[in-house]
């Protein structure tokens, strides 16, 4: 028998979840094998060359605050950055980056290679079994005969499990962008009792930049945003490339309509469930027949290549039809396709098998992260990756899992939604899902999470010290604003009126002034030049003071939620004992097996009547 290579952790898949997971376990001191089907494709972005946006950008900031990688790598690899929703209130402001995909991969690879405890390896798993008498261990066999073993395995296999690609009526087994699918491993997992569902996603064609006429399109340059995603590395804004906006037209739609019989989503070839928020152009044309045009964005894939991404024209029509309709779009008349768009169906782990910290309930030491759990997006994957990594480390240490709450982080919202809502499409985070949206701002992600990042060993001492110093400056600014006040007739008072247009009636503190609409921290800096400096810090304080009333309200709500979360439901609880539960609720509760009453309340189909029935029963018998 071949020699067994033993690790603390084996991460299966080196995409956006896998990289974060491996980095986290390595930082926590565990020898980690990061296994990939193809070494060339580490941290590959198979869809759009873009990171961030509302919700997603928040996730990136949070992963970064915890000490993860996606924020730093995006900052280093970005081609342009934009601030979104700048006019819409602080809670929903977000960064979005266009990323140089190739550079992203290079930088990520470099970081991972420098980690002494990470071992990178290419290989395909053909067998998986549970071994070990005391404490479970997992033994994996590669197609080349190599045997690996570890007490923790993190599955981060993206859309590779039983992947099937559809282009028109042609379909074939495949991972994303022509990569080899994973076929044996999902079968072995099924043999372990793991249940899968079939999801669907897709991407658009890639075009040759030189074949496009940019004069017919509207340029979208980047901006010099005041900060990037990462709290920890110096920000260097880059305006390396523009995106370009153009539109479809009736001719485009006509061609698509005429060819729907060749669209796998419409002719019945695809049974997997697709997304509402990222529809193929076929779906947009069918569902919104009145729209005369749809946006198309041309986005650079990399500074070093001629390949561009076409956002808005995701399609799985036959390649020839894709070419035909693409060429009806102004600027794309002579477009040459370098890769066709496609739809991909793949297996995802049915989420009710997962704990909120992403371990499979029935398989000790087996964690799942990323698209394999039914999410979509690099950011969602990265968030789960770091959570699976940290919790794998805590599992090995025998410590309590790390689970950010819904009022603490978008990551908490994501994890809770994932296991509580029964997904009927790939999950994408939205700010609308966050009931504590005003508290979960991008600018305070470090205040919310950096403590954890340091505690678990992902943030270095130097980073943590900088964080503490920043916190101190925030307090200082706040205190100064509260204690500094001016009379209407003073020079500062006149300056205030001049800058803000507000006529003062009586002595006013800077904090009170900041609460007024239209007054910014920057204005206060001009009024009172002795304010402690700090741009980021000022932004935090400004939001804290301006939205105090709402934040207090959210804090109260969070307190109530926490109480509900404290009412724990014992594992393996039998809902059949509880009389007066509706059949639907009984079934759902049994399936989801919520950990707390709070989680139970969020399950759709569990109504207030069910909840009171459950609470009454538990009060009477369980909690005594």
């Amino acid at each position, binding site marked *: 028998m071949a020699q067994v290579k033993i690790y603390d952790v084996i991460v299966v898949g080196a995409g956006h979840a896998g990289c974060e997971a491996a980095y986290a376990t390595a930082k926590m001191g565990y020898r980690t094998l990061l296994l990939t089907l193809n070494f060339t494709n580490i941290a590959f972005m198979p869809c759009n060359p873009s990171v961030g946006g509302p919700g997603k950008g928040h996730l990136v900031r949070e992963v970064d605050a915890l000490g993860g990688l996606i924020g730093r790598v995006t900052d280093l690899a970005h081609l342009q950055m934009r601030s979104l929703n700048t006019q819409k209130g602080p809670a929903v402001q977000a960064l979005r980056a266009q990323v140089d995909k190739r550079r992203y991969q290079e930088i990520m690879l470099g970081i991972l290679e420098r980690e002494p405890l990470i071992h990178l390896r290419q290989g395909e798993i053909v067998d998986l079994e549970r071994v070990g008498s005391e404490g479970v261990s997992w033994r994996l066999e590669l197609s080349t005969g190599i045997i690996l073993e570890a007490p923790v395995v993190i599955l981060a296999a993206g859309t590779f499990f039983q992947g099937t690609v559809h282009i028109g009526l042609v379909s074939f087994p495949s991972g994303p962008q022509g990569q080899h699918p994973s076929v044996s491993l999902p079968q072995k997992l099924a043999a372990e009792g793991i249940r899968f569902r079939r999801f669907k996603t897709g991407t658009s064609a890639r075009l040759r930049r030189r074949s496009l006429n940019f004069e017919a399109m509207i340029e979208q340059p980047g901006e010099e945003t005041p900060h990037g995603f990462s709290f920890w590395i110096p920000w260097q804004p880059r305006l390396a490339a523009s995106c370009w906006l153009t539109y479809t037209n009736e001719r485009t739609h006509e061609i698509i309509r005429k060819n729907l019989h060749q669209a796998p989503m419409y002719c019945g070839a695809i049974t997997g469930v697709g997304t509402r928020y990222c529809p193929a152009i076929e779906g947009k044309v069918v569902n919104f027949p009145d729209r005369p045009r749809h946006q198309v964005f041309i986005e650079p894939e990399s500074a070093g290549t001629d390949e561009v991404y076409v956002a808005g024209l995701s399609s799985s029509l036959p390649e020839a039809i894709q070419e035909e309709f693409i060429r009806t779009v102004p600027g794309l008349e002579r477009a040459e396709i370098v890769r066709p768009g496609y739809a991909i169906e793949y297996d995802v782990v049915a989420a009710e098998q997962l704990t909120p910290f992403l371990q499979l309930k029935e398989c000790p030491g087996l964690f799942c992260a990323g698209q394999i759990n039914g999410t979509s997006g690099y950011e969602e994957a990265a968030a789960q990756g770091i959570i699976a990594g940290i919790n794998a480390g805590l599992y090995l240490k025998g410590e309590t899992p790390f689970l950010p709450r819904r009022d603490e982080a978008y990551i908490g919202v994501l994890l809770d939604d994932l296991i509580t809502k029964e997904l009927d499409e790939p999950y994408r985070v939205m700010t609308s*899902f966050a009931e504590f949206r005003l508290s979960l701002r991008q600018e305070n992600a470090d205040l919310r999470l950096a403590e954890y990042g340091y505690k678990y060993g992902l943030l270095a001492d130097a980073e943590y010290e900088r964080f503490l110093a920043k916190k101190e400056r925030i307090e200082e600014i706040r205190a100064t604003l509260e204690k500094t006040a001016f009379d209407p007739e003073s020079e500062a008072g006149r300056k205030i009126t001049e800058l803000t247009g507000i006529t003062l009636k009586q002595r006013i503190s800077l904090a009170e002034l900041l609460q007024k609409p239209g007054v910014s921290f920057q204005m206060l800096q001009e009024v009172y030049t002795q304010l402690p400096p700090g741009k980021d810090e000022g932004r935090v304080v400004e939001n804290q003071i301006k939205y105090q009333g709402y934040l207090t309200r959210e804090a109260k709500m969070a307190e109530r939620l926490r109480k509900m979360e404290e009412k724990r439901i014992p594992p393996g609880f039998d809902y059949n004992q509880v009389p007066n539960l509706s*059949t639907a609720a009984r079934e759902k509760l049994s399936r989801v097996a919520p950990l707390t009453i709070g989680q139970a309340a969020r399950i759709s189909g569990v109504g207030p009547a069910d909840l009171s029935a459950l609470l009454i029963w538990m009060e009477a018998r369980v909690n005594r």
Partner: protein
Amino acid sequence: MREETIVAVATPPGEGGIGVIRISGPQAQAIGEKILRHPSGKTITTWPERKVRLGVVISSEEKVIDEVIFFFFRAPRSYTGEDVLEIQGHGGQKNMELILSAAMAAGARPAEPGEFTKRAFLNGRIDLAQAEAVIDLITAQTDLAHRAAQEQLRGRLSDYLHQCEEKLLAVLAQIEAALDFPEDEIPDLDRKEAMGTIAEVAKELAALAAQAEKGRILREAATVVLAGKPNVGKSSLLNRLLGEERAIVTPIPGTTRDFVAEISNLQGLPVRLVDTAGLRETSDPLEQEGVRRTWHWVEKAELILIVLDAAAGLSAEEEQLIREVKEKKRVFIVLNKSDLPPRLTADGVAGRFPGLPVLTVSTVSGEGLEDLEEKIREALVGKDFGREHPVIVTSLRHKDALERAGSYLQDVLAGLRDGLSEDLLSVDLRAALAALGEITGRAVSDEVIAAIFSRFCIGK
């Protein structure tokens, strides 16, 4: 343990014509197989859904009880969301009881009051407001309450609120879509238009909430207390208003020693009439206790009828009583015994107590009683109530939710006016929808996501 199968007579007792028996639960079909036969006597083996079929009900000794028609509804497409067998037989108490006992012998247990509704609600077939209306219906005591319950049952309140919810959701979806998808072509929120929509909804909710106090009277019955000196005819008046000899009437003053409370149907309005011990200075401990209780009822009443004996004149105590009570409660002065030669006239009394309605009646001749009923009803719920058929809110819980929703909408309006950012507007708009959701059972978070994707073409 699975849900038990329940059975009950679905039509009101004592009515002739057709009687309906309903069986709901996992055993419904099995019970049908035991108690139903083809008219030919053959056993029934197929159970097509929602088809009218003829049959006979047999007892456990295989004796034919009744010729019936029956329907089978398969879960979840039934009223309760479970398998339901409905049997329509010949009405009449005896017959219904025989069919019931056949069903029970076959394994069904008698349903508790409202249990079908409870199951329908728990299985998501009807919403909370509808379920509560049914429960009201079951306990409703008079015609108008009955109609309010029925109206609610038909989902009038829910329907009505759904319209409000839809309007608010449209605004919220617009806000949220633009926040979450800033790079899609989501039109900007038209603040003026949004203010119009929200002001309109707020007004509707306020009108509904204002109705609720009256709705509560329908549900819980208003308390009307009859008070006065001994022997003025309080007990006689109670009996007349009730239409039955409930309280003892004698010519001896101090007859009524303890109160008598009884629900009466006052032109469709449920009213709790309370006859009390006559108020006077007394050393009899029993009577003293009666007087104490009278005061207790006065505290609880919505309306006090102070009864005077028109033939006896107005005493100083009575005058004192009227002045004292009218400070606390609505008061009618009722001049009784108008059949006797009067010492008091309505105008005379009205002159002493400006603003208090004075009504002249006689419990002997019946004069003025109908007018009294009319005036009581008007005082409690207003002239047109229940006649113009508004949506009536009968639950205080609903009223509270409506008021909370309304106050959040006022905040949204103020925010729209002051240029508040949209992430903040969303907070109050969501809170308003959540409050309405407490009535209709809809969850904002799910609804808004669905609304976003159905209204806007998202995804670049």
